[in-house]
């Protein structure tokens, strides 16, 4: 099992000239430490207009900064929005290739389509067709990275024959993933030979079932890229402290903070009836995890909040469910002081990591 960090880059009000800079600088310090401690990946979201919840509209820039200050940790787009009003596919291919070169082949490319009215309407994009445009994009990207010349005539974009430069550093190309929030999207990932980048916590039983179906289906896939990425990744909160009670209290504060900010956003489904968004997506599911009935006495099932033993137990369960990677949210809106976040990472690396993969990430 591999471990990573997952960044929304939330910035609490009141906003000052320095507050966003502090959040970014703290995150970079955390990533640098995570690299030294043996964490395997860092992921950054692409979100727009999501006040306080996420001030991370340009993950490629943050990830470049991460890559330039680290040696081994992989840098992941978690995700890049595959909707033409947000990102032109040529620019996605170019940006990811440049970062792959600069990082020495450490890029992972998560793909997705946005789940909020706030963002989609902000770019004047129709929620009804985001899945179609995502599908078109993910089928093009590997060919844009690997073909010397590329041309395309599609429903959402077209281009005449050109050489898209530069080419990615990894051969044949970086691993590709799909953000999975709505049930069923993991099957879209499997059918295309893409990794399942889970962004919901879910419960063990539900996740185990979904992962098993993903595993079965990915065996039969027609990969959109030149290889199959059959890994399953999930997201979790992490706060590790020798004292379970302190860890739970601090960790739950962070989780509740996250959920509170997430709840302020306007999901597509809240106001725009569309078959394209059959579930409420990330936000309500997160809410249930930290504020649902099982969360009042203890952390939600499988959350990595607690002492090393408790966290190890939770991760063993996730491992048994078939999860290959766990990406951690380690702070929200700076609710945990930076020194404590760094201590939590150190303790996790010292006491929990060695239990997995023979101590190697």
């Amino acid at each position, binding site marked *: 099992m591999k471990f990573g960090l997952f960044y929304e880059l939330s910035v609490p*009000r009141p906003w000052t000239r320095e507050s966003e800079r502090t959040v970014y600088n703290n995150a970079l310090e955390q990533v640098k430490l995570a690299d030294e401690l043996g964490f395997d990946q860092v992921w950054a979201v692409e979100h727009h207009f999501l006040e306080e919840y996420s001030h991370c509209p340009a993950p490629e820039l943050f990830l470049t900064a991460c890559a330039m200050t680290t040696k081994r940790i992989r840098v992941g787009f978690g995700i890049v929005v595959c909707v033409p009003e947000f990102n032109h596919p040529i620019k996605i291919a170019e940006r990811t290739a440049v970062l792959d070169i600069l990082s020495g082949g450490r890029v992972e490319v998560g793909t997705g389509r946005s789940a909020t009215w*706030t963002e989609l309407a902000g770019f004047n994009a129709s929620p009804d067709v985001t899945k179609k445009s995502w599908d078109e994009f993910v089928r093009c990207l590997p060919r844009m990275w690997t073909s010397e010349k590329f041309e395309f005539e599609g429903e959402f974009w077209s281009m005449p024959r050109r050489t898209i430069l530069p080419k990615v550093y990894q051969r044949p190309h970086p691993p590709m993933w799909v953000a999975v929030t709505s049930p069923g999207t993991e099957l879209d990932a499997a059918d295309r030979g893409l990794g399942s980048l889970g962004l919901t916590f879910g419960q063990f039983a539900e996740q185990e079932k979904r992962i098993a179906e993903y595993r079965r289906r990915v065996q039969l896939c027609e990969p959109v890229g030149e290889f199959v990425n059959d890994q399953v990744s999930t997201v979790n909160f992490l706060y590790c402290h020798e004292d379970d009670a302190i860890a739970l209290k601090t960790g739950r504060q962070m989780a509740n903070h996250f959920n*509170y900010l997430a*709840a302020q956003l*306007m999901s597509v489904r*809240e*106001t725009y009836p569309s078959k394209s968004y*059959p579930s409420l997506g990330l936000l309500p599911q997160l809410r249930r995890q930290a*504020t649902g009935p099982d969360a009042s006495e203890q952390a939600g099932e499988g959350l990595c909040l607690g002492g090393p033993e408790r966290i190890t137990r939770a991760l063993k369960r996730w491992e048994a469910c078939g999860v290959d990677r766990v990406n951690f949210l380690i702070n929200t809106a700076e609710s945990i002081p930076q020194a404590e976040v760094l201590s939590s990472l150190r303790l996790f690396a010292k006491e929990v990591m060695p239990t997995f993969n023979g101590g190697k990430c």
Partner: protein
Amino acid sequence: MPIFGELALETIAGALPVVKDLDTEAWELPKAEILQVAYEIADGTRALLPRALHPAIPEYVTFVVTRYPESPVGPFNLAQVRLMARAGVHPRGYVLGTVASSAAAVAALRERWGYPAVAGEIALRRYHDRVRAVVRREDRAILELALVDPEIVSGSDLQYIHSVTLARVDGAAQLIQVDPHYTLHQASRGRAEVTSFDAAAWSAALVELTTPISASTSVCDTDLPRIRFVMDPETPVIRGTRKVR
């Protein structure tokens, strides 16, 4: 922490409906027809929203026009303008204005659920290419809106967000959660169109419509339920909520 509403309660305290008893009995409301239109609005409506609530991001309103063919006070139509918000982590529609088509409905809505209801005429009509509603008071249209080019969707594609009214209960202003149940039989969606909106007539003078979001219509069995929660309008709901039952 997200920003809060900034309603100065004293500016409307004298006009609040008075709820006599929170032990309100539920009304079953079968075969209701609902037209809902959502619209983004310009910033600057925080002065309309109680301090307990957070404005939605982006700010928006919903217009909800409902025909109730059966109710304990006979058939009536109801129109609401709601400023959409968050009560803690829950999406809610804060009711700015309400028009009901019968005097009995007006009285019951005010006394039992705290709706700021006034009497008016409400027409809800289906055409081949649209579902249109017109609300009139004192011989003047104060709201004209439509769902244009309806297409059938699954009932599960619609989400109705619960309402919050502001009323006087036992001498004090309270937010009252009104959380109906819905069993949907038909559902459609379409383009939102508002051709006239007299914001002041809905106690919504600061509301300026900007961008249409969506329109939906449904036929459903619903209710006006027993009151379950009330909230202090001046305190964040995470601390100021009281469970009635």
